[in-house]
Protein backbone atom coordinates (compact mmCIF):
# COMPACT_ATOMS: atom_id res chain seq x y z
CA UNK A 1 0.00 0.00 0.00
CA UNK A 2 1.14 3.53 -0.71
CA UNK A 3 1.22 5.84 2.26
CA UNK A 4 0.67 9.56 2.47
CA UNK A 5 2.17 9.73 5.94
CA UNK A 6 4.48 7.32 7.75
CA UNK A 7 5.55 8.14 11.28
CA UNK A 8 7.97 5.94 13.17
CA UNK A 9 9.11 6.45 16.76
CA UNK A 10 8.66 10.22 16.44
CA UNK A 11 9.52 12.39 19.45
CA UNK A 12 9.87 16.08 20.06
CA UNK A 13 11.27 17.40 23.31
CA UNK A 14 11.20 21.02 24.42
CA UNK A 15 13.79 20.96 27.16
CA UNK A 16 12.75 18.13 29.48
CA UNK A 17 9.13 18.24 28.32
CA UNK A 18 8.12 15.67 25.71
CA UNK A 19 5.46 17.29 23.52
CA UNK A 20 5.44 14.25 21.27
CA UNK A 21 6.56 11.00 22.87
CA UNK A 22 7.64 8.17 20.59
CA UNK A 23 4.58 7.93 18.34
CA UNK A 24 4.14 5.71 15.29
CA UNK A 25 1.31 5.60 12.79
CA UNK A 26 0.74 5.55 9.05
CA UNK A 27 -1.99 6.88 6.81
CA UNK A 28 -2.66 5.42 3.34
CA UNK A 29 -3.02 7.72 0.33
CA UNK A 30 -6.36 9.20 -0.80
CA UNK A 31 -7.86 9.03 2.67
CA UNK A 32 -9.18 11.63 5.05
CA UNK A 33 -7.36 11.02 8.32
CA UNK A 34 -8.85 12.61 11.42
CA UNK A 35 -6.12 13.42 13.93
CA UNK A 36 -7.95 13.86 17.23
CA UNK A 37 -6.88 14.97 20.66
CA UNK A 38 -7.46 17.68 23.25
CA UNK A 39 -5.58 20.99 23.13
CA UNK A 40 -1.94 20.63 24.12
CA UNK A 41 -1.87 16.91 23.33
CA UNK A 42 0.85 17.26 20.70
CA UNK A 43 -1.24 17.56 17.53
CA UNK A 44 0.20 20.83 16.29
CA UNK A 45 3.75 19.81 17.15
CA UNK A 46 3.33 16.65 15.09
CA UNK A 47 1.86 18.65 12.22
CA UNK A 48 4.72 21.14 12.28
CA UNK A 49 7.20 18.28 12.07
CA UNK A 50 5.26 16.78 9.15
CA UNK A 51 5.46 20.12 7.33
CA UNK A 52 9.21 20.24 7.86
CA UNK A 53 8.93 23.41 9.94
CA UNK A 54 10.03 21.80 13.19
CA UNK A 55 12.86 19.29 13.48
CA UNK A 56 12.05 16.07 15.40
CA UNK A 57 14.18 15.14 18.40
CA UNK A 58 14.03 11.50 17.33
CA UNK A 59 12.26 9.21 14.88
CA UNK A 60 11.50 8.94 11.20
CA UNK A 61 8.98 10.88 9.18
CA UNK A 62 7.98 10.09 5.63
CA UNK A 63 5.55 12.17 3.64
CA UNK A 64 4.35 10.78 0.27
CA UNK A 65 7.05 8.15 0.53
CA UNK A 66 9.92 10.63 1.02
CA UNK A 67 11.90 11.37 4.14
CA UNK A 68 10.99 14.89 5.33
CA UNK A 69 14.45 15.69 6.63
CA UNK A 70 16.29 15.01 3.37
CA UNK A 71 13.55 16.05 0.91
CA UNK A 72 12.37 19.34 2.39
CA UNK A 73 11.87 20.91 -1.04
CA UNK A 74 9.83 17.98 -2.32
CA UNK A 75 7.67 17.99 0.79
CA UNK A 76 7.07 21.76 0.66
CA UNK A 77 6.17 21.60 -3.03
CA UNK A 78 3.70 18.72 -2.54
CA UNK A 79 2.14 19.54 0.80
CA UNK A 80 -0.57 22.08 1.52
CA UNK A 81 -1.11 23.46 5.00
CA UNK A 82 -4.01 25.42 6.37
CA UNK A 83 -4.23 26.57 9.98
CA UNK A 84 -7.20 27.50 12.10
CA UNK A 85 -6.07 31.12 11.93
CA UNK A 86 -6.79 31.29 8.16
CA UNK A 87 -3.45 32.94 7.52
CA UNK A 88 -4.61 35.17 4.70
CA UNK A 89 -3.43 38.69 3.96
CA UNK A 90 -6.56 40.37 5.23
CA UNK A 91 -5.65 43.70 3.66
CA UNK A 92 -5.37 42.20 0.18
CA UNK A 93 -8.14 41.15 -2.19
CA UNK A 94 -9.20 37.55 -2.78
CA UNK A 95 -7.39 37.53 -6.11
CA UNK A 96 -4.18 39.10 -4.76
CA UNK A 97 -4.03 36.43 -2.05
CA UNK A 98 -4.29 33.68 -4.66
CA UNK A 99 -1.81 35.49 -6.95
CA UNK A 100 0.70 35.77 -4.13
CA UNK A 101 0.71 32.09 -3.24
CA UNK A 102 0.71 31.16 -6.92
CA UNK A 103 3.91 33.20 -7.30
CA UNK A 104 5.44 31.70 -4.17
CA UNK A 105 4.79 28.19 -5.49
CA UNK A 106 6.23 29.09 -8.87
CA UNK A 107 3.11 28.81 -11.05
CA UNK A 108 3.56 30.47 -14.42
CA UNK A 109 1.05 33.00 -15.71
CA UNK A 110 -1.20 30.73 -17.74
CA UNK A 111 -1.21 27.97 -15.13
CA UNK A 112 -2.00 30.58 -12.53
CA UNK A 113 -5.10 31.84 -14.32
CA UNK A 114 -6.46 28.31 -14.88
CA UNK A 115 -5.79 27.32 -11.28
CA UNK A 116 -7.33 30.52 -9.93
CA UNK A 117 -10.58 29.88 -11.86
CA UNK A 118 -10.67 26.32 -10.51
CA UNK A 119 -10.11 27.37 -6.93
CA UNK A 120 -12.53 30.31 -7.06
CA UNK A 121 -15.19 27.93 -8.29
CA UNK A 122 -14.27 25.30 -5.70
CA UNK A 123 -14.42 27.89 -2.90
CA UNK A 124 -17.62 29.41 -4.36
CA UNK A 125 -15.89 32.78 -4.47
CA UNK A 126 -16.56 33.64 -8.10
CA UNK A 127 -17.44 37.29 -8.49
CA UNK A 128 -15.67 38.17 -5.25
CA UNK A 129 -12.17 38.36 -6.72
CA UNK A 130 -11.75 42.05 -5.90
CA UNK A 131 -13.19 41.83 -2.40
CA UNK A 132 -10.76 42.40 0.47
CA UNK A 133 -10.11 39.12 2.25
CA UNK A 134 -10.58 40.70 5.68
CA UNK A 135 -14.13 41.69 4.75
CA UNK A 136 -15.20 38.12 3.96
CA UNK A 137 -17.31 36.20 6.47
CA UNK A 138 -15.91 33.17 8.32
CA UNK A 139 -16.97 30.46 5.90
CA UNK A 140 -15.69 32.34 2.86
CA UNK A 141 -12.41 33.17 4.53
CA UNK A 142 -12.00 29.50 5.38
CA UNK A 143 -12.59 28.40 1.79
CA UNK A 144 -10.23 31.09 0.46
CA UNK A 145 -7.56 29.90 2.89
CA UNK A 146 -8.10 26.37 1.63
CA UNK A 147 -7.77 27.62 -1.94
CA UNK A 148 -4.51 29.44 -1.16
CA UNK A 149 -3.15 26.38 0.62
CA UNK A 150 -3.73 24.15 -2.40
CA UNK A 151 -2.88 26.49 -5.27
CA UNK A 152 0.09 24.24 -6.13
CA UNK A 153 -2.04 21.07 -6.38
CA UNK A 154 -0.53 19.37 -3.32
CA UNK A 155 -1.00 15.61 -2.99
CA UNK A 156 -1.30 15.89 0.78
CA UNK A 157 -3.28 18.54 2.63
CA UNK A 158 -2.80 19.15 6.32
CA UNK A 159 -5.65 21.09 7.91
CA UNK A 160 -5.24 22.19 11.53
CA UNK A 161 -8.71 22.80 12.98
CA UNK A 162 -9.97 24.27 9.71
CA UNK A 163 -13.57 24.57 10.93
CA UNK A 164 -12.97 26.24 14.29
CA UNK A 165 -15.34 29.15 14.65
CA UNK A 166 -17.23 28.51 11.42
CA UNK A 167 -21.04 28.16 11.27
CA UNK A 168 -22.60 24.67 10.75
CA UNK A 169 -23.79 25.36 7.19
CA UNK A 170 -20.32 26.48 6.11
CA UNK A 171 -18.79 23.52 7.91
CA UNK A 172 -20.98 21.09 6.00
CA UNK A 173 -20.17 22.87 2.74
CA UNK A 174 -16.47 22.69 3.60
CA UNK A 175 -16.61 18.96 4.26
CA UNK A 176 -18.38 18.50 0.94
CA UNK A 177 -15.40 20.11 -0.77
CA UNK A 178 -12.91 18.02 1.22
CA UNK A 179 -14.69 14.78 0.34
CA UNK A 180 -14.77 15.70 -3.33
CA UNK A 181 -11.03 16.50 -3.33
CA UNK A 182 -10.27 13.22 -1.53
CA UNK A 183 -12.24 11.32 -4.14
CA UNK A 184 -10.17 13.05 -6.81
CA UNK A 185 -7.00 11.74 -5.17
CA UNK A 186 -5.85 14.22 -2.52
CA UNK A 187 -4.86 12.84 0.88
CA UNK A 188 -5.91 14.73 4.01
CA UNK A 189 -4.85 15.03 7.59
CA UNK A 190 -7.44 17.01 9.56
CA UNK A 191 -7.59 17.91 13.21
CA UNK A 192 -10.92 18.80 14.73
CA UNK A 193 -12.80 19.05 18.01
CA UNK A 194 -16.18 18.37 16.36
CA UNK A 195 -17.13 14.73 16.77
CA UNK A 196 -19.57 14.81 13.85
CA UNK A 197 -16.62 15.77 11.68
CA UNK A 198 -14.52 12.96 13.16
CA UNK A 199 -17.18 10.51 12.06
CA UNK A 200 -16.92 11.78 8.48
CA UNK A 201 -13.23 10.80 8.30
CA UNK A 202 -12.05 7.62 6.61
CA UNK A 203 -9.63 6.93 9.43
CA UNK A 204 -9.08 8.40 12.85
CA UNK A 205 -6.31 8.36 15.41
CA UNK A 206 -6.12 9.73 18.96
CA UNK A 207 -3.24 11.55 20.54
CA UNK A 208 -3.11 12.41 24.23
CA UNK A 209 -0.19 13.71 26.30
CA UNK A 210 2.06 13.24 23.29
CA UNK A 211 1.16 9.57 22.87
CA UNK A 212 -1.01 7.82 20.31
CA UNK A 213 -3.80 5.78 21.89
CA UNK A 214 -5.10 2.73 20.06
CA UNK A 215 -4.73 2.18 16.31
CA UNK A 216 -5.50 4.23 13.26
CA UNK A 217 -8.86 2.74 12.25
CA UNK A 218 -12.08 3.77 10.57
CA UNK A 219 -14.65 5.44 12.87
CA UNK A 220 -17.20 2.63 12.31
CA UNK A 221 -14.64 -0.01 13.15
CA UNK A 222 -13.65 1.89 16.27
CA UNK A 223 -17.22 2.17 17.49
CA UNK A 224 -17.73 -1.55 17.03
CA UNK A 225 -14.44 -2.37 18.66
CA UNK A 226 -15.13 -0.20 21.70
CA UNK A 227 -18.86 -0.90 21.76
CA UNK A 228 -19.49 2.81 22.06
CA UNK A 229 -22.34 4.98 20.84
CA UNK A 230 -20.20 7.82 19.58
CA UNK A 231 -16.62 8.86 18.98
CA UNK A 232 -16.86 11.20 21.93
CA UNK A 233 -17.48 8.29 24.32
CA UNK A 234 -14.43 6.49 22.99
CA UNK A 235 -12.43 9.64 23.36
CA UNK A 236 -13.46 10.17 26.99
CA UNK A 237 -12.86 6.48 27.76
CA UNK A 238 -9.35 6.69 26.28
CA UNK A 239 -8.47 9.75 28.30
CA UNK A 240 -9.75 8.19 31.54
CA UNK A 241 -7.78 5.04 30.88
CA UNK A 242 -4.61 7.01 30.18
CA UNK A 243 -4.98 9.09 33.33
CA UNK A 244 -5.50 5.97 35.48
CA UNK A 245 -2.48 4.28 33.96
CA UNK A 246 -0.37 7.30 34.65
CA UNK A 247 -1.52 7.76 38.24
CA UNK A 248 -0.99 4.05 39.09
CA UNK A 249 1.68 2.72 36.77
CA UNK A 250 2.15 -0.48 38.84
CA UNK A 251 -1.38 -1.81 38.33
CA UNK A 252 -1.88 -1.45 34.57
CA UNK A 253 -5.29 -3.08 34.59
CA UNK A 254 -6.29 -2.14 31.04
CA UNK A 255 -4.99 -3.11 27.70
CA UNK A 256 -5.51 -0.37 25.17
Amino acid at each position, binding site marked *: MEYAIEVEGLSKHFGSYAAVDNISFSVPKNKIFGFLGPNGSGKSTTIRML*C*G*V*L*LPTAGNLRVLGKDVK*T*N*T*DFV*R*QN*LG*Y*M*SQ*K*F*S*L*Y*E*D*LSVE*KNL*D*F*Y*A*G*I*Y*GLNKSAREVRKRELLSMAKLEGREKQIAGHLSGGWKQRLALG*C*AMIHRPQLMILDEPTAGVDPISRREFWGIIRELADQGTSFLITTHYMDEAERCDLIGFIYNGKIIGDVVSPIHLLEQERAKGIEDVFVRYVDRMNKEESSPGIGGYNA
Partner: protein
Amino acid sequence: MRNRFSFQRFWSIVKKEFFQIIRDPVSIKVPIVIPIVWIVLFGYSVQNNVDHIALAVFDQSKTQESRELVSLFSNSGSFTVAKDVASISELSDLLDAGKVRSGIVIPPNFQKALQSGEAAKVKFLVDGTDPTIAGTALNSASLVWKDYIADITGQRMNLLGIGESSGFNSLVLATDIKYNPTMENSVFSIPGLIALIVQNITIMLSAFTLVREREKGTIEQLMVTPVKASELIFGKLIPYIVIGYIGFLFSLIICILLFGVHISGSFPLFLGLCFLFVLCTLSIGILISTIAKTQVQAMNYTSLILLPSVLLSGFIFPREAMPVVIDTLSYLIPLTYFIEITRGIMVKGVGIEFLITQVTVLCIFTLAMLSIACMRFKKTLD
Protein backbone atom coordinates in the same frame (compact mmCIF):
# COMPACT_ATOMS: atom_id res chain seq x y z
CA MET B 1 19.53 20.35 -0.14
CA ARG B 2 17.70 23.68 -0.28
CA ASN B 3 16.74 25.24 -3.57
CA ARG B 4 18.34 28.29 -5.13
CA PHE B 5 17.22 31.90 -4.79
CA SER B 6 14.12 32.21 -6.97
CA PHE B 7 13.43 35.51 -8.65
CA GLN B 8 9.77 34.65 -9.08
CA ARG B 9 9.26 34.05 -5.38
CA PHE B 10 11.26 37.18 -4.56
CA TRP B 11 9.14 39.24 -6.96
CA SER B 12 5.90 37.82 -5.54
CA ILE B 13 6.98 39.08 -2.13
CA VAL B 14 7.84 42.51 -3.56
CA LYS B 15 4.43 42.86 -5.21
CA LYS B 16 2.51 41.60 -2.20
CA GLU B 17 4.38 43.91 0.16
CA PHE B 18 3.85 46.83 -2.18
CA PHE B 19 0.08 46.25 -2.40
CA GLN B 20 -0.05 45.98 1.39
CA ILE B 21 1.79 49.27 1.83
CA ILE B 22 -0.54 51.01 -0.61
CA ARG B 23 -3.52 49.77 1.36
CA ASP B 24 -2.00 50.81 4.68
CA PRO B 25 -2.70 54.48 5.37
CA VAL B 26 0.04 54.67 7.99
CA SER B 27 2.82 53.46 5.72
CA ILE B 28 1.84 56.04 3.14
CA LYS B 29 1.63 58.92 5.61
CA VAL B 30 4.89 58.24 7.43
CA PRO B 31 7.29 59.45 4.70
CA ILE B 32 5.21 62.61 4.24
CA VAL B 33 4.21 63.51 7.80
CA ILE B 34 7.47 62.72 9.60
CA PRO B 35 9.60 65.06 7.48
CA ILE B 36 7.15 67.94 7.96
CA VAL B 37 6.77 67.48 11.72
CA TRP B 38 10.45 66.86 12.41
CA ILE B 39 11.71 69.66 10.25
CA VAL B 40 9.35 72.15 11.82
CA LEU B 41 10.09 70.88 15.35
CA PHE B 42 13.83 70.53 15.09
CA GLY B 43 14.52 73.01 12.35
CA TYR B 44 13.01 75.83 14.32
CA SER B 45 13.37 74.79 17.95
CA VAL B 46 16.97 73.67 17.75
CA GLN B 47 17.65 77.02 16.16
CA ASN B 48 20.14 78.43 18.57
CA ASN B 49 21.06 81.29 16.34
CA VAL B 50 21.10 84.20 18.65
CA ASP B 51 20.74 87.77 17.61
CA HIS B 52 19.99 91.06 19.39
CA ILE B 53 22.20 90.17 22.30
CA ALA B 54 21.83 92.87 24.93
CA LEU B 55 24.98 94.97 25.07
CA ALA B 56 26.02 97.49 27.71
CA VAL B 57 28.37 100.22 26.61
CA PHE B 58 30.90 101.92 28.86
CA ASP B 59 32.28 104.59 26.59
CA GLN B 60 35.04 106.50 28.39
CA SER B 61 36.23 108.12 25.21
CA LYS B 62 32.95 109.73 24.14
CA THR B 63 34.31 110.71 20.75
CA GLN B 64 32.98 110.36 17.25
CA GLU B 65 35.29 107.38 16.74
CA SER B 66 34.02 105.52 19.79
CA ARG B 67 30.39 106.17 18.88
CA GLU B 68 31.11 104.85 15.43
CA LEU B 69 32.45 101.62 16.91
CA VAL B 70 29.33 101.22 19.08
CA SER B 71 27.01 101.83 16.17
CA LEU B 72 28.86 99.14 14.20
CA PHE B 73 28.02 96.72 17.00
CA SER B 74 24.34 97.58 16.97
CA ASN B 75 24.15 97.66 13.17
CA SER B 76 25.54 94.13 12.96
CA GLY B 77 22.16 92.83 14.12
CA SER B 78 23.82 90.59 16.65
CA PHE B 79 23.76 93.21 19.39
CA THR B 80 21.30 95.69 20.76
CA VAL B 81 22.67 98.47 22.89
CA ALA B 82 20.63 98.03 26.04
CA LYS B 83 22.28 100.62 28.23
CA ASP B 84 25.06 103.17 28.44
CA VAL B 85 26.84 102.81 31.74
CA ALA B 86 29.13 105.09 33.65
CA SER B 87 31.37 102.61 35.43
CA ILE B 88 32.81 99.12 35.26
CA SER B 89 30.91 98.13 38.40
CA GLU B 90 27.61 99.22 36.89
CA LEU B 91 28.40 97.04 33.88
CA SER B 92 29.27 94.10 36.12
CA ASP B 93 26.00 94.51 38.00
CA LEU B 94 24.03 94.43 34.77
CA LEU B 95 25.85 91.27 33.69
CA ASP B 96 25.30 89.70 37.09
CA ALA B 97 21.60 90.44 36.95
CA GLY B 98 21.40 89.04 33.47
CA LYS B 99 20.01 92.32 32.16
CA VAL B 100 22.72 92.38 29.53
CA ARG B 101 24.67 89.48 28.05
CA SER B 102 27.67 91.42 26.91
CA GLY B 103 29.49 94.64 27.51
CA ILE B 104 32.03 96.79 25.76
CA VAL B 105 34.51 99.02 27.54
CA ILE B 106 36.12 101.73 25.44
CA PRO B 107 39.19 103.33 27.06
CA PRO B 108 39.51 107.12 27.48
CA ASN B 109 42.47 107.23 25.14
CA PHE B 110 40.63 105.43 22.31
CA GLN B 111 40.75 108.39 19.89
CA LYS B 112 44.41 109.02 20.67
CA ALA B 113 45.20 105.40 20.15
CA LEU B 114 43.67 105.57 16.73
CA GLN B 115 45.43 108.71 15.75
CA SER B 116 48.87 108.27 17.24
CA GLY B 117 49.18 104.55 17.73
CA GLU B 118 49.19 104.80 21.52
CA ALA B 119 48.53 101.43 23.18
CA ALA B 120 44.92 100.98 24.16
CA LYS B 121 42.61 98.10 24.97
CA VAL B 122 38.96 97.79 24.08
CA LYS B 123 37.44 95.24 26.40
CA PHE B 124 34.62 92.97 25.40
CA LEU B 125 32.81 91.13 28.18
CA VAL B 126 30.49 88.19 27.73
CA ASP B 127 28.14 86.37 30.04
CA GLY B 128 29.21 82.76 29.62
CA THR B 129 26.11 81.19 31.20
CA ASP B 130 24.73 80.11 27.88
CA PRO B 131 27.63 78.96 25.76
CA THR B 132 25.63 79.30 22.59
CA ILE B 133 24.90 82.95 23.22
CA ALA B 134 28.43 83.55 24.43
CA GLY B 135 29.87 81.90 21.36
CA THR B 136 27.73 83.95 19.03
CA ALA B 137 28.53 87.15 20.93
CA LEU B 138 32.27 86.53 20.83
CA ASN B 139 32.28 85.67 17.19
CA SER B 140 30.09 88.58 16.19
CA ALA B 141 32.19 90.95 18.23
CA SER B 142 35.36 89.78 16.59
CA LEU B 143 33.79 90.19 13.15
CA VAL B 144 32.62 93.69 13.95
CA TRP B 145 36.04 94.53 15.31
CA LYS B 146 37.78 93.22 12.21
CA ASP B 147 35.53 95.24 9.95
CA TYR B 148 36.16 98.32 12.02
CA ILE B 149 39.93 97.93 11.93
CA ALA B 150 39.93 97.21 8.23
CA ASP B 151 37.82 100.28 7.66
CA ILE B 152 40.06 102.53 9.77
CA THR B 153 43.22 101.17 8.19
CA GLY B 154 41.78 101.85 4.76
CA GLN B 155 40.92 105.42 5.69
CA ARG B 156 44.32 105.96 7.15
CA MET B 157 45.99 104.66 4.02
CA ASN B 158 43.95 106.98 1.88
CA LEU B 159 44.75 109.92 4.10
CA LEU B 160 48.43 109.38 4.47
CA GLY B 161 49.16 107.46 1.35
CA ILE B 162 51.30 105.05 3.29
CA GLY B 163 51.20 101.37 4.12
CA GLU B 164 50.02 99.43 7.09
CA SER B 165 49.65 101.38 10.26
CA SER B 166 51.35 99.86 13.24
CA GLY B 167 48.89 101.22 15.80
CA PHE B 168 46.34 98.43 15.66
CA ASN B 169 48.36 95.30 15.84
CA SER B 170 47.75 94.86 19.54
CA LEU B 171 44.02 95.15 19.06
CA VAL B 172 43.47 92.43 16.46
CA LEU B 173 41.29 89.56 17.65
CA ALA B 174 42.48 86.26 16.36
CA THR B 175 39.18 84.42 15.82
CA ASP B 176 38.64 82.66 12.58
CA ILE B 177 35.48 80.71 11.89
CA LYS B 178 35.55 78.41 8.96
CA TYR B 179 32.68 77.18 6.72
CA ASN B 180 29.96 78.96 8.58
CA PRO B 181 31.26 82.41 9.43
CA THR B 182 27.86 83.70 10.44
CA MET B 183 27.31 80.63 12.65
CA GLU B 184 24.02 80.07 10.84
CA ASN B 185 22.61 77.19 12.86
CA SER B 186 20.44 75.70 10.15
CA VAL B 187 23.48 75.09 7.98
CA PHE B 188 24.80 72.88 10.73
CA SER B 189 21.63 71.18 11.90
CA ILE B 190 19.71 70.58 8.66
CA PRO B 191 22.04 67.95 7.16
CA GLY B 192 21.87 66.04 10.42
CA LEU B 193 18.13 66.48 10.53
CA ILE B 194 17.69 65.01 7.06
CA ALA B 195 19.83 62.04 8.08
CA LEU B 196 17.78 61.56 11.24
CA ILE B 197 14.47 61.70 9.37
CA VAL B 198 15.62 59.14 6.81
CA GLN B 199 16.68 56.85 9.64
CA ASN B 200 13.39 57.19 11.52
CA ILE B 201 11.13 56.65 8.54
CA THR B 202 12.94 53.54 7.37
CA ILE B 203 13.40 51.88 10.76
CA MET B 204 9.83 52.58 11.83
CA LEU B 205 8.35 51.14 8.66
CA SER B 206 10.51 48.07 8.28
CA ALA B 207 10.66 47.08 11.94
CA PHE B 208 7.06 45.93 11.77
CA THR B 209 7.07 44.09 8.47
CA LEU B 210 7.90 40.57 9.67
CA VAL B 211 6.40 41.03 13.12
CA ARG B 212 3.05 41.87 11.57
CA GLU B 213 3.12 38.62 9.61
CA ARG B 214 4.00 36.76 12.77
CA GLU B 215 1.14 38.35 14.71
CA LYS B 216 -1.40 37.73 11.97
CA GLY B 217 -0.21 34.15 11.54
CA THR B 218 0.65 34.53 7.86
CA ILE B 219 4.27 33.69 8.62
CA GLU B 220 3.11 30.20 9.58
CA GLN B 221 1.68 29.80 6.10
CA LEU B 222 4.84 31.13 4.46
CA MET B 223 6.97 28.73 6.47
CA VAL B 224 5.47 25.66 4.82
CA THR B 225 6.03 27.11 1.33
CA PRO B 226 9.32 26.78 -0.56
CA VAL B 227 10.10 30.48 0.08
CA LYS B 228 13.62 31.17 1.36
CA ALA B 229 14.54 33.58 4.15
CA SER B 230 16.64 35.67 1.75
CA GLU B 231 13.83 35.89 -0.81
CA LEU B 232 11.44 37.03 1.86
CA ILE B 233 13.80 39.57 3.39
CA PHE B 234 15.04 41.10 0.14
CA GLY B 235 11.52 41.03 -1.29
CA LYS B 236 10.29 42.98 1.71
CA LEU B 237 13.18 45.42 1.47
CA ILE B 238 12.46 46.71 -2.04
CA PRO B 239 9.14 48.52 -1.43
CA TYR B 240 10.53 50.12 1.71
CA ILE B 241 13.56 51.37 -0.19
CA VAL B 242 11.15 53.21 -2.48
CA ILE B 243 9.12 54.62 0.43
CA GLY B 244 12.24 55.54 2.41
CA TYR B 245 13.80 57.31 -0.54
CA ILE B 246 10.61 59.25 -1.24
CA GLY B 247 10.70 60.37 2.39
CA PHE B 248 14.31 61.48 1.98
CA LEU B 249 13.65 63.47 -1.20
CA PHE B 250 10.62 65.04 0.42
CA SER B 251 12.63 66.17 3.47
CA LEU B 252 15.37 67.51 1.24
CA ILE B 253 12.89 69.61 -0.72
CA ILE B 254 11.28 71.00 2.45
CA CYS B 255 14.68 71.91 3.87
CA ILE B 256 15.65 73.66 0.67
CA LEU B 257 12.37 75.58 0.56
CA LEU B 258 12.13 76.48 4.26
CA PHE B 259 15.75 76.99 5.20
CA GLY B 260 17.31 77.74 1.87
CA VAL B 261 20.05 75.17 2.49
CA HIS B 262 22.05 74.20 -0.53
CA ILE B 263 24.39 71.35 -1.30
CA SER B 264 27.95 72.61 -1.67
CA GLY B 265 29.32 69.31 -2.93
CA SER B 266 28.30 66.83 -5.61
CA PHE B 267 24.54 66.37 -5.79
CA PRO B 268 24.66 62.89 -7.44
CA LEU B 269 27.12 61.74 -4.77
CA PHE B 270 24.74 63.03 -2.10
CA LEU B 271 21.79 61.19 -3.66
CA GLY B 272 23.82 58.00 -4.03
CA LEU B 273 25.08 57.93 -0.46
CA CYS B 274 21.58 58.63 0.82
CA PHE B 275 20.49 55.50 -1.01
CA LEU B 276 23.19 53.56 0.82
CA PHE B 277 22.00 54.96 4.14
CA VAL B 278 18.36 54.06 3.38
CA LEU B 279 19.52 50.48 2.77
CA CYS B 280 21.54 50.50 5.96
CA THR B 281 18.74 51.71 8.23
CA LEU B 282 16.20 49.42 6.55
CA SER B 283 18.41 46.50 7.40
CA ILE B 284 18.36 47.63 11.04
CA GLY B 285 14.56 47.68 10.86
CA ILE B 286 14.36 44.24 9.30
CA LEU B 287 16.74 42.91 11.93
CA ILE B 288 14.47 44.30 14.66
CA SER B 289 11.61 42.60 12.89
CA THR B 290 13.30 39.21 13.11
CA ILE B 291 14.01 39.68 16.83
CA ALA B 292 10.73 41.14 18.07
CA LYS B 293 7.85 38.80 18.80
CA THR B 294 5.09 41.41 18.79
CA GLN B 295 4.53 44.83 17.27
CA VAL B 296 4.77 46.38 20.74
CA GLN B 297 8.20 44.83 21.18
CA ALA B 298 9.22 46.08 17.76
CA MET B 299 8.13 49.57 18.82
CA ASN B 300 10.23 49.34 21.99
CA TYR B 301 13.31 48.11 20.15
CA THR B 302 12.84 50.93 17.66
CA SER B 303 12.83 53.61 20.35
CA LEU B 304 15.77 51.87 21.97
CA ILE B 305 17.72 52.62 18.80
CA LEU B 306 16.26 55.99 17.90
CA LEU B 307 16.91 57.80 21.18
CA PRO B 308 20.64 57.01 21.50
CA SER B 309 21.09 57.82 17.85
CA VAL B 310 19.60 61.28 18.37
CA LEU B 311 21.82 61.92 21.38
CA LEU B 312 25.07 60.25 20.37
CA SER B 313 25.35 60.74 16.63
CA GLY B 314 26.47 64.33 16.95
CA PHE B 315 23.15 65.57 15.63
CA ILE B 316 22.54 67.84 18.65
CA PHE B 317 25.56 67.51 20.90
CA PRO B 318 29.05 67.76 19.46
CA ARG B 319 30.82 64.41 19.71
CA GLU B 320 34.05 66.24 20.52
CA ALA B 321 32.56 67.12 23.89
CA MET B 322 31.61 63.54 24.79
CA PRO B 323 33.57 61.37 27.24
CA VAL B 324 35.63 58.67 25.52
CA VAL B 325 33.27 55.82 26.49
CA ILE B 326 30.23 57.57 25.07
CA ASP B 327 32.10 58.70 22.00
CA THR B 328 33.17 55.07 21.39
CA LEU B 329 29.51 54.04 21.60
CA SER B 330 28.64 56.57 18.95
CA TYR B 331 30.84 54.66 16.51
CA LEU B 332 28.30 51.83 16.70
CA ILE B 333 25.54 54.04 15.34
CA PRO B 334 25.27 54.24 11.54
CA LEU B 335 23.67 57.69 11.83
CA THR B 336 26.97 59.03 13.19
CA TYR B 337 28.69 58.21 9.92
CA PHE B 338 25.89 59.43 7.73
CA ILE B 339 25.72 62.78 9.55
CA GLU B 340 29.43 63.18 8.82
CA ILE B 341 28.65 62.40 5.19
CA THR B 342 25.75 64.86 4.89
CA ARG B 343 27.63 67.64 6.66
CA GLY B 344 30.69 66.88 4.57
CA ILE B 345 28.85 67.08 1.27
CA MET B 346 26.24 69.73 2.07
CA VAL B 347 28.29 72.14 4.15
CA LYS B 348 31.94 71.61 3.32
CA GLY B 349 31.40 70.40 -0.22
CA VAL B 350 33.90 67.54 0.09
CA GLY B 351 34.10 64.68 -2.40
CA ILE B 352 34.00 60.92 -1.93
CA GLU B 353 37.76 60.77 -1.24
CA PHE B 354 37.16 62.35 2.18
CA LEU B 355 34.27 60.04 3.00
CA ILE B 356 35.76 56.62 2.18
CA THR B 357 35.82 55.54 5.83
CA GLN B 358 32.21 56.48 6.49
CA VAL B 359 30.99 54.85 3.27
CA THR B 360 32.92 51.65 4.00
CA VAL B 361 31.55 51.44 7.52
CA LEU B 362 27.98 51.93 6.29
CA CYS B 363 28.45 49.17 3.70
CA ILE B 364 29.77 46.79 6.35
CA PHE B 365 26.90 47.66 8.71
CA THR B 366 24.35 46.97 5.95
CA LEU B 367 25.81 43.64 4.88
CA ALA B 368 26.28 42.47 8.44
CA MET B 369 22.76 43.33 9.53
CA LEU B 370 21.13 41.79 6.48
CA SER B 371 23.09 38.58 6.94
CA ILE B 372 22.18 38.39 10.61
CA ALA B 373 18.53 39.08 9.72
CA CYS B 374 18.52 36.24 7.17
CA MET B 375 20.18 33.84 9.61
CA ARG B 376 17.92 34.83 12.48
CA PHE B 377 14.87 34.44 10.33
CA LYS B 378 15.89 30.93 9.31
CA LYS B 379 16.24 30.10 12.99
CA THR B 380 12.76 31.30 13.83
CA LEU B 381 11.43 28.84 11.28
CA ASP B 382 12.78 26.06 13.44
